[in-house]
């Protein structure tokens, strides 16, 4: 809710009538406001929230067993890990770039964390720290290649992604590491208020990054850079640094996702994540209103995007339809979002 919130102030204010004497006037104004397309604008500024609410309502009405507490728990558990990954992707998309290596970072982080915990007997905090550093290093590579070697992000991260995928296979020697030590599993499995700690970890990361993007100098510069790199650079925005840092953040968060995935399934495997996960995360960011052309993005909205597509996946499961429909739906969502975005831009 970083960017759109600024404009919400206006529209929100008109809905609430303050004192009784003003209420009649406010109601009249409200009607005029709805007639003039104000309602459409309100929806337009909060697309992610409305999509989420619409899905919740529709699923509750039409999908059996959806509206149950334990089902909500399932959705939350499944959303926690992509929610962490989507934050980084949102930041990269905000610069107008993309990180296709995200899912492969997840795979490499998974197998490496398994080796550290199981083969080398490293304590859990050391594994966590090392994995974050690994992610940071990989992200710096992505960032430096796109920024200084002038390779388009799409190609650069596709290339590094495949390099990482190959490395993960070599490191794992084709095997999966099972039965991980208990202290390592505790990172994401400790029960808290009836939910695994991974959910709260995701929440904490989300809050930190939401504040970073919506309230700090860094976030403002990121937005300006995404909208107009030239004007931003000539206004003193350290463009190169911003561009490199988003890839660093993205891979670090992807590595954390990989570690939490490993904890959740109690198995370290190099095939974890991959292209399918990258695609899921990009879809979630787009459902959350992130623009593929830069400038527009918000952590809170992207996480609503994750919840939305996880609800779709959940419904597909509950309805007993093939999981592959979920993949097709994701593709359709991305296409639809881009087409709609183009149409509205043309109208403007």
């Amino acid at each position, binding site marked *: 809710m970083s960017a759109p919130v600024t404009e919400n102030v206006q529209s929100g204010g008109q809905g609430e009538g303050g004192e009784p004497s003003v209420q009649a006037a406010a109601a009249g104004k409200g009607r005029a406001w709805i007639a003039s397309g104000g309602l459409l604008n309100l929806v337009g500024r909060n697309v992610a929230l409305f999509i989420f609410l619409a899905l919740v309502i529709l699923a509750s009405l039409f999908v059996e067993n959806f509206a149950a507490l334990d089902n909500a728990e399932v959705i939350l558990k499944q959303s926690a890990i992509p929610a962490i990954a989507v934050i980084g992707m949102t930041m990269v998309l905000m610069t107008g770039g993309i990180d296709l290596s995200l899912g492969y970072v997840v795979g490499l982080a998974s197998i490496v964390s398994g080796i550290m915990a199981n083969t080398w007997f490293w304590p859990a905090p050391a594994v966590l720290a090392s994995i974050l550093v690994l992610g940071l290093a990989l992200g710096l590579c992505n960032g430096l290649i796109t920024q200084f070697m002038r390779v388009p992000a799409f190609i650069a991260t596709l290339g590094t992604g495949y390099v990482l995928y190959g490395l993960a296979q070599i490191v794992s020697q084709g095997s999966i590491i099972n039965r991980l030590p208990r202290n390592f599993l505790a990172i994401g499995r400790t029960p808290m208020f009836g939910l695994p700690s991974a959910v709260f970890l995701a929440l904490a990361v989300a809050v930190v990054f939401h504040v970073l993007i919506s309230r700090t100098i860094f976030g403002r510069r990121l937005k300006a850079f995404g*909208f107009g790199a*030239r*004007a931003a650079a*000539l*206004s*003193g925005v350290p463009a190169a640094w911003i561009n490199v840092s988003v890839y660093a953040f993205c891979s670090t968060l992807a590595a954390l996702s990989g570690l939490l995935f490993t904890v959740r399934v109690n198995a370290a495997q190099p095939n974890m994540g991959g292209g399918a996960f990258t695609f899921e995360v990009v879809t979630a960011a787009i459902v959350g209103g992130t623009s593929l052309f830069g400038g527009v993005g918000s952590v809170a909205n992207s996480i609503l995007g994750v919840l939305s597509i996880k609800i779709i996946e959940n419904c597909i499961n509950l309805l007993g339809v093939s999981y592959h429909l979920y993949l097709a739906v994701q593709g359709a969502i991305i296409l639809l979002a881009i087409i709609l975005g183009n149409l509205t831009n043309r109208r403007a």
Partner: protein
Amino acid sequence: MLEPLVSMRGVTKFIYGGDGRPLRNTDVKILEDVDFDLFPGEVHVLVGENGAGKSTLMRILGGIIPPDRGELKIAGARVNLADARDAREKGVAFIHQELNLCANLDVAHNIFLGREPRRRGLKDAGEMYRRSAELLKALSADLDPRLPVARLSTAQQQLVEIAKAMSFRSRVVIMDEPTASLTKREIDVLFDLIRRMRAEGIGIVYISHRFEEILTIGDRFTVLRDGRLVGTRPIQSFEPSSVIWMMAGRSIDEMYPRTHAVEPEPVLELRGLRLAAHTPPIDLVVRRGEVVGLGGLVGSGRTELAKSVFGARRFHGGEVRYLGRKTNGWSPARLIRAGMAYLSEDRKTEGLIPPMSIRENLSLASLRSVAKLGFLSRDKEERQAAKLIQQLSIAARSSEQLVSTLSGGNQQKCVLGKWLCTAPRLLMLDEPTRGIDVGAKAQIHKLIDQIAGAGVGILMISSELPELIGISDRVYVMREGGVAAELEAGPELTQERVVACMV
């Protein structure tokens, strides 16, 4: 008298706002009431400063954009061109400065792109190559139609464009700065070709900034200024200083405020700065509280000079001293922190972030002053925006309005406001009043005076001579990448003197 090939009457084009609707109520228009005629067998040269409306007028003739008012006749018949293709079919060929060829296709395929000769539904390649060869031969061009365009020089590519125009039997050919990237010899070849086309009764519109060429090839010339027609004359009366006068000169009909006082300490000193390897070294000084004007023709190096000082461009040796320190190689970010500011002539891509609000644009260059430990204070930011909106009288509903929805004058005030937030010591202004209405212009002139009065050194690039002379304490006139003259304000500083130094 011959009937004109093209006759444009009262052509007007409004400025379009961020919402895609024309702004009819401002007194600034891209084109206003322009008349233009082109006769068979003439080379009609179009001159004017950047932004004078030359390209817009030709884009209308080329069918790329429609006029908002006025009529267009081709060969005596009134036409409404639907698009560029329609214009081409009606005999108007537009050869753009950036050539529009497909590099991966060969010459013949480019000439017949989209209308390859067919036989029984299939492409007739033999016929296509034969006709291409004929066309090229008619232009006495020694060019193999099977050569891929990627392997051709710019001059050869231009030939392909001309062959393409001929294949449409175009009667009107528009050339937008065709010699910009040609060598001397290639230019001669091109001119031969133009003369041949002229002999065949084709009318040519020739846009150029280069006076020698205009004298060599032109028959008549038309000068545009601020979207208005200044005049159309035969080339015999083309005299560089009088043409510059037509392009840039205005009668001084306003009073320029002058309350600031120059102090002795220099803010900016350039010692032997060379903009390019072959340009002469530049020495220049701007003092505290001084408004220094930078005059010159388009392409004389004024913007390059400002960008070199601002760290946004590489230069070839020499020294930039800012506040007594050598700042060669400093980044714009570092210079901004040290109090240097540069208002670009390109408001939309270098000055503002149009999809962001006024508040966000105003604080962009000085985020630290509205933040604590990296966290932005919405309160401080809003107070700052409100203060500047009032101080600069920016016409806006609120500070949350997107700058893309503001008029040009108000946008320019936003850029100025952004730099005022950085508490500048040196403010470089590149065409600060281009494309904005008279009222906003006067306000900006007043602001410049006030800012200088607060002890800021100002370096102002302007193509408007009255502005340059009216506000500046001193004027440097640039020519071909170097400083041609330095003129002090006073009775000596006249529009005639400045113009004489430009050429």
